[in-house]
């Protein structure tokens, strides 16, 4: 889902960079004091885990691959604001150090994966978790990554490189991630429940995921 430079028109890229900066600034402000000093390294561990997990491309016979993105999981574990900052850190490192995702379109990639996926995923989790925490985590991962992909598809479809073929891009990316997102949902649900079961004291607001 990492968009390279050249795929998105400059005005679109600039608008999304501004939007991402605004959202992350608000997220940082709302995250102040959200963790105590002892648990502060958890933010690093979750972000590093998301980075490492994103490197695992799951081969799917037929020539497709899926990799875990982790936005919804980060939101469930740390809350949406810290989750967004975690994923934004990951996406930035990927772009600057590894050239995975463009620099000019960094704001767009942050918007899709660290804003849309995280906040949509968290909203879905909050809606479903009261009925089924495990199901909520699954739906959050599944629909969160699909929402992020749809956001990317709309940006690409509104750009000249993709000949403004918005419907084609939305269909390919939307359907593709709707299917691949089942893996994201499964991993999100299993990991969230495992972590909540193993150390509920570390995730004081998320322990309900194991119920």
């Amino acid at each position, binding site marked *: 889902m990492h968009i390279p430079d050249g795929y998105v028109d400059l005005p679109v890229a600039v608008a999304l960079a501004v939007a991402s900066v605004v959202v992350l600034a608000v997220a940082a402000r709302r995250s102040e004091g959200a963790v105590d000093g002892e648990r502060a390294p958890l*933010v690093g561990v979750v972000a590093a885990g998301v980075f490492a997990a994103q490197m695992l491309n799951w081969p799917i016979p037929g020539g497709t691959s899926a990799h875990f993105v982790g936005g919804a999981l980060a939101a469930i574990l740390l809350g949406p604001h810290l989750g967004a900052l975690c994923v934004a850190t990951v996406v930035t490192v990927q772009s600057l150090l590894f050239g995975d995702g463009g620099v000019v379109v960094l704001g767009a990639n942050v918007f899709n994966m660290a804003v849309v996926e995280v906040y949509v995923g968290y909203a879905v989790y909050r809606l479903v978790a009261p009925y089924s925490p495990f199901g909520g985590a699954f739906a959050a991962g599944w629909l969160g990554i699909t929402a992020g992909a749809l956001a990317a598809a709309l940006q690409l479809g509104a750009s000249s490189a993709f000949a403004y073929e918005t419907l*084609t891009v939305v269909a390919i990316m939307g359907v593709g991630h709707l299917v691949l997102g089942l893996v994201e949902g499964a991993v999100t649900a299993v990991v969230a429940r495992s972590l909540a079961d193993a150390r509920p004291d570390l995730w004081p607001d998320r322990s309900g995921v194991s119920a």
Partner: protein
Amino acid sequence: MCGPLRVRDWRATAALVLLALVVLAPVFGWAAGQVGYAEPLENAAEATGATDDADPVHTGLLPGYTVPGTPTALGTLVAALVGTALTLAVATGLGRVLADGTDGD
């Protein structure tokens, strides 16, 4: 509930889990390469003729999660290690900046 020993426990466990993910990166990279994988974004670019418009402004120090001049698997392993460590450092720093200044209970 979270005394110093317990804190060290979870940090050691987290480090082991991260290390396991890093070690798995070359294995998954090889396996994905065997199926000639493509992501939906790449499929959409091909369908609309956008593929040739990709124009990287910056390839990064370790382009494509490889280390230039080293075998692919080793390069992927090093890239995973460096990227995970850097992300851990940056996000931990972020967490400390945003922490409330207490040490928990």
